[in-house]
């Protein structure tokens, strides 16, 4: 491309604030004509918010955009389409009961007769090697074919910039190959592509440049072809993936938690199915589950806590007792406590007092209820004990959970479960959005608890946290759990690659096949 051509799109200091979270913090980067630009980051890094502003669905609080050398502002997607911006969403908006052509017609801004439209659709499909029959019912199409409808819809506008939001999350490897061919052809004709993903091997294969977002900020720009998956994973996950020194390996006791061949169907469309998950955790051991968000962590916690029931009662065995068919109360009574990721509205009720929140999960193990009546004295006393022992900054046990800061509420929730002294504790994102002081306190409490003889499972996206805490870790990706690896002497490359999804694409889940995968990824 000529050097003097203006950038297709320049973002300058784009900022978007949501209540309580800065989704985009002065984000700036450029996309040249014909460039395939990757936007890389974990879930929640601010990728979707950013593209929604480019596509006119949201409005930025600050910052400006330049389109082909001219100031650019769109207030709705129709205006964005008129400028030449097309977008293919992660989740399609198609009518199942209509044909391919009818669906495309419904998405068009201009008015064309069906006949004219069909001619254009066929032209576009031939030009880009997209096979679709215009008169097929959408309900009879595969996910890959449905995505093609969305792509055709975008291509009919002769876009100058095509935004693809996690396009391969629903595709088979063959469909991915086909998609990449189409995208490369588009780019060679001068269309810019903004490609959103957290899959490192795809980005290495496809993209010319990458902008990495973390916590709403640009934390790096790179040429994916020159980077390793590890280096990009480090930028994406945050900080360097440093080796940490641990003391001598503990002597572990009995197996307290044994999960075997646990599978769980998706509970809703955006969920992840769990596939054949097996692991065991021994007395005194902290077992880590690493992985990029949205790969089945919430589902795993739900099926361990009893909020979702396992298919077989033997799928989950607590110290020799089958508990797969037990609900949350029953599991707590026999010694399995859990802390879900979301504090407000899941682990705690914001509108309830701290003592009421203590009753929520501790009423059986701490005897806070007798003959159906709440024992006020013991409930307040237990809440006070948590507040004192875990250094929770609150006005007292009468304070509403919602009035506490994230870190303090998390300390309260962790304290509520830890002081029940369960045999097994499962926690998800124990320090997510928590200040460093509270995080260190929670980490120490977990280590102390394991030393006192409990088995602990920590599900976290923060790899540093897992490496610091755990003796054993394993990686969850697309609902599948990798083999357990000892943290001592672990290779960060292995973990980083497993998290980036290499093993998902290659359908290999054996950690000892990693070397082969690394060479595959490098070749790609």
């Amino acid at each position: 491309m000529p050097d003097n051509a203006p950038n297709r799109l320049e973002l300058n200091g784009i900022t978007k604030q949501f209540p309580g979270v800065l989704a985009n913090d002065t984000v700036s980067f450029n996309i040249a004509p014909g460039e395939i630009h990757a936007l890389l980051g974990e879930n929640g890094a601010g990728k979707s918010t950013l593209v929604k502003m480019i596509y006119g669905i949201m409005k930025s609080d600050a910052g400006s955009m330049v389109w082909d050398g001219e100031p650019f502002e769109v207030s709705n997607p129709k205006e964005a389409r008129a400028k030449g911006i097309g977008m293919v969403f992660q989740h399609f908006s198609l009518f199942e009961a209509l044909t391919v052509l009818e669906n495309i017609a419904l998405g068009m801004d201009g008015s064309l007769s069906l006949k004219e439209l069909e001619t254009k659709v066929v032209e576009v499909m031939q030009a880009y090697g997209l096979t679709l029959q215009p008169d097929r019912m959408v309900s009879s199409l595969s996910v890959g074919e449905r995505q093609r409808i969305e792509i055709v819809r975008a291509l009919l506008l002769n876009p100058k910039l095509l935004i693809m939001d996690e396009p391969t999350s629903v595709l088979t490897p063959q469909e991915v190959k086909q998609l990449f061919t189409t995208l490369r052809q588009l780019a060679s004709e001068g269309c810019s592509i903004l490609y959103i993903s957290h899959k490192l091997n795809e980005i290495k294969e496809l993209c010319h440049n990458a902008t990495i977002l973390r916590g709403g900020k640009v934390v790096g720009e790179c040429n994916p072809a020159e980077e390793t998956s590890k280096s990009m994973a480090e930028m994406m996950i945050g900080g360097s993936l440093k080796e940490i020194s641990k003391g001598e390996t503990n002597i572990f006791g009995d197996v307290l938690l044994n999960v075997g061949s646990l599978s769980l169907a998706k509970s809703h469309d955006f969920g992840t199915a769990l596939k054949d998950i097996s692991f065991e955790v021994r007395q005194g051991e902290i077992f880590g589950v690493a992985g990029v968000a949205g790969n089945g962590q919430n589902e795993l916690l739900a099926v361990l806590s009893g909020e979702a029931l396992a298919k077989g009662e033997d799928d989950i065995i607590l110290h020799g007792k089958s508990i797969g068919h037990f609900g949350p109360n029953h599991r707590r009574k026999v010694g399995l406590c859990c802390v879900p990721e979301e504090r407000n509205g899941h682990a705690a009720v914001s509108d309830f007092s701290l003592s009421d929140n203590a009753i929520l999960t501790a009423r059986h193990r701490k005897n806070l209820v007798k003959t159906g009546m709440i024992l006020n004295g013991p409930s307040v006393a237990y809440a006070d004990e948590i507040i004192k022992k875990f250094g929770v900054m609150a006005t007292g046990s009468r304070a509403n959970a919602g009035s506490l800061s994230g870190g303090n509420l998390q300390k309260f929730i962790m304290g509520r479960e830890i002081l029940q002294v369960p045999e097994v504790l499962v926690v998800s994102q124990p320090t997510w959005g928590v200040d460093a002081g509270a995080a260190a306190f929670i980490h120490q409490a977990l280590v102390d608890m394991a030393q006192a003889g409990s088995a602990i499972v920590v599900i976290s996206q923060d790899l540093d946290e897992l490496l610091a805490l755990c003796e054993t870790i394993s990686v969850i990706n697309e609902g599948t759990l990798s083999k357990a690896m000892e943290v001592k002497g672990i290779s960060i490359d292995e973990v980083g690659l497993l998290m980036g999804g290499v093993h998902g694409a290659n359908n290999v889940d054996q950690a000892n096949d990693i070397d082969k995968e690394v060479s595959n990824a490098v070749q790609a």
Partner: protein
Amino acid sequence: MQFRLEKRAEISRSMLYFTPVAAVLLTMIMGAIIFTILGFNGAVAVREIFLTPLTNSLKWQDLAVKSAPLIIIAVGLSIGFRANVWNIGAEGQYIAGGLAATGVALITHQMSGWWLLPLMGVAGILGGMAWVAVPAFLRVKLNVNEILTTLMLTYVAVQLLNFLVFGPWKSPTSFGQPQTVLFNNDQILPYIIPGTIVQAGAPIAIFIAIFAWVLMSKSIFGFQIRTVGTAPNAARYGGFSANQTIWFSLLIGGGLAGFAGMLEVAGPFNRMVPQFPTNYGFTAIIVAFLGRLHPVGVMVAGIVLAISFVGGEIAQTTIGLPNAAVGLFQALMLFLILAGDILVRYRIKRVGQKSEVSSS
């Protein structure tokens, strides 16, 4: 200048108590304006409906009689509403309870004894529960919206009532009037204050409200209801079953509505007649919301709505206000309570002109 609603970090306690009072006052003001426009003396209409029942001590016993069923039904509904279970067909459950009690009264008509009234009470409760069990089952098993099913079953109950009093239950001595025989003396509620029309329903209503207050605030059952209604995910995590909560809250609402039906049929009516449905079941929805879904608030709100009923009758005779006027006032009140609720969770914030370029 623009105004914007901004979410409060915590719900406002003061607004929680202020908005129902404001809603009642606004109802009076708007009602006065509407009736003035319609050609009545609006100020007098409001005075007759809202003040005369309070200033005229002869009307106090009417208030006790009217508020008792409203309070009993609204207490039951408020428990369900707390759990986000929307039973709006209490009128049907009230009729079903009244019919069940009537059935027992007709079967035992030749008998006597203290046990007749308790038996009719149990029948009333079971009748209301049976009527609401259908929506509960459909909601839990097939996820059918209980708002629709409870409401629709109300009209079924009305038809059943008409069928029975025009048909099999019609008194042979009523000269063709559609009504059952008069209940016998052991089947009629006793008067508790001599020389008045106040029957046992009033103290029972107070007892039920206090019992519900303790249940909701002190028992783990009340905790379950509150948790399911406030944070369903937290409730599931805490081990509370959503389906069980739906069943319990609907059965309690239906049971209490049915019980109120029994108290009415064995009290003021003394027999089953086609005029038995008096909209208590629908008005109780307003009572529940005006009382902030709290049993003690419901007692106060029950009296407020009873005032509007009694006052409506006064206004009919004194200034010739149409009967529908009461319904208008009550609907206006519910509308304003619900509209005012937004101030509990949001505050109104003034937005400067320069901060936002456009918000259209």
